């Protein structure tokens, strides 16, 4: 074997090891933050937190992702920031969960939504990992879709059309399913080497799929 062949193989091996490390750390941090977020959601449900506090938590989480995370993502403090914003988002789920828990089969709806979200995430991650395909070509499409959905949601606040909200929730599930493929393939193909940022992206996808699935199931239930 020539020196150049040896070094190419060595570089490929080191790259694969590095990718596996990012993936392993991402899934480990994701598991812990999902548990922490669920605990915070239970706390806020018990405390009967209102929609105003929930909105304030969402603003707080956005501020952390926007202003603090970019400065701390490369250090150990980034992990603490991820726990802080996932905790805030989990806490902000309280009023939504209480709304569904007040229904006769609300607990069943929430459990179905959680199970459905887990199945979607595991299925899509497994698909991205086994195919090893590069889904980075989706970047422009997904972000353009996200802007359209946000604009539709903005209009929905003023128009008060139940059908529009149904369409928005369905679009959110499809869009964030695409983001799971996009984010996972970026980790596999070396586009994302920071597990803190990778966890943030996948957590937000899971969070949005869960809430939208819960709304859709709530609509179907009614």
């Amino acid at each position, binding site marked *: 074997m020539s020196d150049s062949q040896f070094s190419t193989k060595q570089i490929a091996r080191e790259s694969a090891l590095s990718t596996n490390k990012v993936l392993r750390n991402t899934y480990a941090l994701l598991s812990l933050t999902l548990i922490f977020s669920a605990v915070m959601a239970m706390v806020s449900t018990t405390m009967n937190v209102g*929609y*105003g506090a929930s*909105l304030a938590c*969402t*603003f707080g989480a*956005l501020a952390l*992702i*926007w202003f603090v995370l970019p400065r701390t993502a490369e250090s150990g403090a980034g992990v603490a920031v991820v726990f802080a914003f996932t905790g805030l988002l989990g806490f902000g789920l309280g009023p939504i969960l209480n709304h569904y828990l007040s229904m006769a089969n609300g607990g069943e*709806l929430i459990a*179905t939504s959680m199970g*459905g979200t887990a*199945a*979607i995430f595991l*299925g*899509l991650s497994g*698909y991205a990992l086994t*195919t090893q*395909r*590069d*889904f*980075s*070509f*989706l*970047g*422009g*499409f*997904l*972000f*353009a879709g*996200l*802007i359209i959905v*946000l*604009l539709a*949601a*903005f209009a929905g*606040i*003023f128009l008060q059309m139940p059908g529009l909200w149904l369409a928005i929730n*369905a679009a959110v*599930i*499809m869009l964030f*399913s*695409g983001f799971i*493929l996009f984010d996972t393939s970026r980790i596999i193909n070396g586009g994302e080497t920071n597990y803190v940022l990778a966890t943030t992206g996948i957590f937000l996808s899971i969070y949005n799929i869960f809430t939208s*699935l819960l709304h*859709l*199931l709530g*609509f*179907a*239930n009614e």
Partner: protein
Amino acid sequence: MSALEIGYALLIVALLIFIFPAAKYWLKNSPKAEKGDWQAFLFPISMVIAFVAILMLIVAR
């Protein structure tokens, strides 16, 4: 219009401002899809749509 609705509207505006730089970057720099890429994306997404539809049907019964 309630204060809560104004709050949600402001949150959406903040989200739009937040994602705009990333959206601009990916709209400019996304690699072109190769042959079979869109099919590879549409297959799992159609599975997700079917799965959600089945869940909704189960809940509606």
